[in-house]
């Protein structure tokens, strides 16, 4: 079974600063890491491979330094990685990114499953996973918290094999089954990511990671990059935090009752919102 995992390199959340003038994230000099939520996608793929055999391929779109994210994934156990990088792709929104990644996945071909993280901690949209599924015209299950392939038979012909998943939804879990190949995005609950080992790091260092650009993929250049992206960021602003604090001194029964009433009132207002 061939599993493709799409990962993203993001700035380390704690050290992120915003440029107040342009409203964009300052990326220079900030540590770049694998999107923390993608680690769960990585772990999910590795566990499926351990159970059912096959290979796991990582893909990532980004600048050339994003290669370190793929190396880290290989250190954790991926078989190989492909970096999708081209100046023509820079500034792509989630629609264009999904399109490019889908084309890369088509080129890899012969896959059973595409796994993505729930969302990236920088863009925070969660759109690329389902976007890829849409461009590939495949079923998608998002927010997956549990996976099973009950009738898995062979490593080669798994077309038609059923994937059973549990999805985390607002008020509980939803059980679904769908046929392979398909796309899933996973939530934290699915597993605890492993740590990269020394042997893994050494293997990752030796592994050659091909870089695919505009000439390697069958993409319409008018549909990618800043100009090809339908999304326009018109304005970015920092939300104003307004906290109103009121001190109620609990000095006697009456004031305690007053405090309780106030809290109950606030709670009711929250419920009615």
């Amino acid at each position, binding site marked *: 079974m061939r599993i493709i995992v799409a990962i993203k390199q993001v700035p*380390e959340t*704690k*050290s992120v600063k915003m440029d107040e003038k342009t409203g964009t994230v300052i990326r220079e000099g900030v*540590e770049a*890491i*694998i999107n*923390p939520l993608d*680690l769960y996608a990585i772990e999910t793929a590795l566990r499926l491979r351990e159970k059912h055999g096959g290979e796991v391929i990582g893909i990532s779109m980004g600048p050339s330094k994003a290669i370190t994210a793929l190396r*880290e994934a290989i*250190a954790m156990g991926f078989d190989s990685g492909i970096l999708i990088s081209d100046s023509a792709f820079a500034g792509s929104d989630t629609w264009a990114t999904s399109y490019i990644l889908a084309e890369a996945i088509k080129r890899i071909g012969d896959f059973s499953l595409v796994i993505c993280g729930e969302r990236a901690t920088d863009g925070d949209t969660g759109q690329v996973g389902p976007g890829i599924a849409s461009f590939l015209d495949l079923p998608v299950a998002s927010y997956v918290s549990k996976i099973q392939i009950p009738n898995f038979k062979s490593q080669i012909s798994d077309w038609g094999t059923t994937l059973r998943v549990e999805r985390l939804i607002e008020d509980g879990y939803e059980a679904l089954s769908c046929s392979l190949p398909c796309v899933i995005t996973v939530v934290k609950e699915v597993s*605890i990511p*492993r*740590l*990269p*080992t*020394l*042997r*893994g*790091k*050494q293997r990752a260092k030796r592994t050659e990671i091909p870089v695919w650009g505009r000439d390697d993929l069958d993409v319409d250049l008018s549909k990618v990059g800043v100009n090809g992206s339908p999304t326009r960021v018109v304005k970015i602003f920092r939300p104003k935090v307004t906290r109103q604090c009121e001190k109620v001194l609990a000095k006697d029964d009456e004031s305690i009752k007053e405090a309780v009433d106030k809290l109950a009132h606030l709670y009711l207002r929250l419920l009615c919102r």
Partner: protein
Amino acid sequence: MTDDKKYNPVTPKIADQLKGIVGAKYVIFDDAEKLEPYSHDEISGREYAHMPEVVVRPENAAEVAAIMKLANREMIPVTPRGAGSGLSGGAVPIYGGIVLAIDRMNKIIELDRENMMIVVEPGVITSEINEYIKDCGLFYAGYPMSLETCYIGGNVAENAGGAKAIKYGVTSRYVLGLEVVTPTGEIVQLGGKLIKDVSGYNMIGLMVGSEGTLGFFTKITLKLLPSTKAEVDLLCLFKNSEEAMSIVSKIMTTVGIVPASIEFMNNCAVKGACDYLNETIPYKQAGAMLLITIDGAEEQQVERDYEAIGEFCLDNGAIEVYIADNTTTSERIWNIRRNMAEAFNAFSSRQGAEDIVVPPASVGTMVALMGEIAEKFDVMIPAYGHAADGNIHTRIISRPEWSDEKWRQILNGIQSELYQLTAELGGRISGEHGIGHKRKNSLPYVVSENYIDMLRTIKRAMDPNNILNPGKIFDL
């Protein structure tokens, strides 16, 4: 001799005089609720706590000097207090009197980039120093585990160590100058922006680690280093403590690399913390862990170093070696070490916290002996700490069903054996937490009476009325 007989109480009139020195709003008097937080440090156990009569929060050396003069005149004990994150009771006013809190003296006075030095007031939080200078390519190498809460003044008073002592040494290595208010209320400048200085006795050496008994620091000049550019952590799992410990000294002697830190965790510590964190690394097969940090000025060098050390560990019995070269992974593996105390607090709040230090090559022996003691007394003794510099933090965890009295009896028995073994190995009962009043009765286990007499002579000479932090380290 007990000191408390001769001290006078803080009367409302004296409180008014103190208010006259620092301003009324910086004096806490006659308000038990507000005084209570100043009655203890981070040691668990109420028996080590004592209420102050008044808390005074001065702003500068002149105010501190005036308070010390008043205290000598009125015979009132004065206990300096930093962030209260100590672990030996150094900031606890065991005879009541005045607590001198340094929290308002929290300014960074001068960053001298040419000299690679920084001058700070004692109430600056240790980690703020590095926050302040991080864009200048410099760093302060002091690294106590409490660096996000503790004050630099407390670090100097306790000669704080921490995780990076094997490579960077302890606080004393970085203190070049001190402005000190003496116990009798004089302001004296010691050292300065000097790398070398032999004008008389090494008074800075005497002051650093004096646990607030010889002087109150009002300005501190610290040496800075060029920042490191790369840092990588290795988490190495071993079958047992012996294998892990035998590696520690060899990393330096055989591989020839001095890591920034080598943290050790024994079987009990590993299991406790990993269970607590629901960790998924295969810790159940691992009887011990080493957490090794390599840092350096160049990424490639650090990579070569960690590979060499990692290979050496695998060749010498390590079950697995994990590598963390980014914040996400690094946080994950340091979490195991940092949550150690929490993990065992969940088991029982009655614990003895030890700070044994032995010659580095004897740590293995010490850890093995701790295991024997744990078995003999039927208690959990998670041992963890700074393996490479010989400093092991042992926690002795009470069984939940024991009564307080039984626990005290057992703890005394264990400590007595532990301290004797420490002495036999040429060690001391505290490597970095200090003696305070918590360990003063145990000090004779590891040092001679002549040595303590020498300390007494110095104390009497500098503080004839025994006003500044009395009853700490030794009784006069």
